[in-house]
């Protein structure tokens, strides 16, 4: 058998594909079948089971904003996941309340997903409702006007196009709002 794989390219090809597919299928096709929470949109009405709320699909305007977020590559520097680390839940928190960790059921409608791999800027998984439109307008024009020391590039063309600006802000205000976890008062004063 080994000799055959050593001298016959067909055998070698077949065996290397079989080995590849064992791991390939067990880690890509099987997990969503085993863990059904990946595909079930978040919904909870019972406060005893954790934060209540319901995940709703984005509307037309918010989806448009999401496209801009993708086009400008925001997701290269901003992750969208509050990980199971204490510091993450504090950093994503709001007015002294820790944020719940991100769970798969909060991202069911995300296509493409924007979890991200690099956190050059802060995580945005719970940013919705924290900063108002005027804050975002100033910040997109020049981030350093609001956050000295920031290295985020300015995005003046987003502010100048009123429709695009409205869309991207509308999208960002949805982030992390499926779970109703925090004090009511929106926006930084």
């Amino acid at each position, binding site marked *: *058998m*080994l*000799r055959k794989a*050593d001298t016959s390219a067909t055998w070698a090809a077949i065996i290397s594909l079989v080995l590849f597919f064992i791991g390939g299928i067990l880690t890509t096709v099987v997990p969503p079948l085993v*863990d059904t*929470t990946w595909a079930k949109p978040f919904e909870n009405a019972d406060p005893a089971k954790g934060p209540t709320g319901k995940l709703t699909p984005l509307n037309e305007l918010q989806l448009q904003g999401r496209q801009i977020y993708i086009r400008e590559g925001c997701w290269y520097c901003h992750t969208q996941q509050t990980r199971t680390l204490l510091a993450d839940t504090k950093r994503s928190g709001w007015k002294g309340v820790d944020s719940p960790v991100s769970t798969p059921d909060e991202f069911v409608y995300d296509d493409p997903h924007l979890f991200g791999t690099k956190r050059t800027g802060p995580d945005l998984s719970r940013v919705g409702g924290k900063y108002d439109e005027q804050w975002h307008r100033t910040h997109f024009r020049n981030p350093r006007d609001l956050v000295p020391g920031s290295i985020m590039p300015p995005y003046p063309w987003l502010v100048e196009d009123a429709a695009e600006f409205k869309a991207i802000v509308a999208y960002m205000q949805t982030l992390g709002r499926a779970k109703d976890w925090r004090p009511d008062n929106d926006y930084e004063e």
Partner: protein
Amino acid sequence: MADYTWPSIYFAYSYFVLMVLGALVFLIRTVKDGYWGARGEDVKYQVFDSHEEREEGRTS
């Protein structure tokens, strides 16, 4: 979320057994197929084009 503690322990042990059995099977096959014989390493001289270069490589 469901508790997968026991299934993962069963998985880990059976996986380990499977790997050991696989290693044994392949060890026996390599002996049968002559991998440990005198010509078992011949293939590596194929990178050298000419006969002389090949012989040189073998002796150095």
